[in-house]
């Protein structure tokens, strides 16, 4: 009992040091743990940039794994990740769907014409309500959704080559997709 009491300050110190270490170094405080991982993609019915008169629903997207990328013309980071999305669309079989988030549709169509269009289609979320359903707090955000419509991964911020190889491709591989061009060790 006495010896235990002597150890108490040390134990307290270790506990506090561990908590501070975790809090200050391990986690990026800007990164929210996503509440939507392993939850179904929220239902929606939205027009697209391609056909503003025909609404698209969740059922039109699901059936095989896909990427859902939230983007806007006012978002400079979206511009920065655009070439990587184009590369993925060109080199891989995974479809990329866009969510044009709180944007001017005409501007968005021009943007895609100028920089290229990696999306199968982009739904128009003009007032950001689908964004709220998705827990979006900063574009760009990229989701990996499985064939059954369940969100398996979320990336806040730009997708670059490293994020693709180390984070997105492994999730897609787990979902049964094959990527021949990647070194076996990647991810």
């Amino acid at each position, binding site marked *: 009992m006495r010896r235990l009491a002597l150890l108490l300050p040390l134990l307290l110190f270790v506990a506090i040091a561990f908590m501070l270490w975790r809090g200050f170094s391990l986690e990026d*405080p800007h990164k929210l*743990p*996503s509440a939507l991982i392993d939850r179904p993609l929220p239902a929606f019915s939205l027009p697209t940039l391609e056909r503003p008169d025909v609404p698209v629903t969740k059922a039109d997207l699901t059936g095989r794994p896909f990427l859902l990328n939230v983007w806007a013309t006012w978002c400079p980071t979206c511009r920065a990740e655009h070439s990587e999305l184009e590369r993925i669309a060109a080199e891989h079989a995974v479809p990329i769907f866009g969510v044009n988030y709180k944007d001017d549709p005409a501007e968005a169509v021009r943007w895609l014409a100028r920089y290229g269009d990696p999306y199968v289609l982009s739904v128009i979320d003009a007032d950001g309500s689908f964004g*709220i*359903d998705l*827990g979006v707090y900063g574009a760009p955000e990229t989701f990996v959704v499985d064939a059954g419509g369940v969100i398996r991964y979320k990336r806040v911020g730009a997708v670059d080559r490293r994020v693709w190889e180390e984070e997105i491709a492994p999730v897609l591989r787990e979902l049964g997709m094959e990527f021949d061009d990647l070194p076996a060790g990647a991810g």
Partner: protein
Amino acid sequence: MRRLLLVLLCLGPLVAGAAIDLQEFDTPAQEARYHALIDELRCPKCLNTNLSGSDSPISADLRRTVARMVREGRSDEEIRSYLLERYGDFILYRPRVTPATWLLWFGPAVLLLVGAVVIVLMVRRQRRAAGAADLSPEEAERLARLRAATDASRS
């Protein structure tokens, strides 16, 4: 030129005020609930600002959402869980009581209890030590005699 500057300065506050979005409610109670909610909900984009204090676009959207749900007659609990489902625990400035937050909720009380136990133990030990120093009647008598002798020799 000076007059123009004066006019511009007078217009300044109007522009500054324009950042505050106006929400209309049917009853003052609804408005009070709205303000209470946006005060205790956290802006997901910012690290330490509530919805009412944040200028970020996502906060404006969420304020609008909260206002709409208040107008629709949803309960505070419904509104909180709606946002919780989408943004996770981060959005709550008043964390839920779950196993992960037990330390946060009950830690201070536990520490207080530990402190109280330590004090009780110390006081007891001190009493016991004092008890060991108690004198037997003969010893007390001897002490009294010695004291009397010392006093006598002094005077």
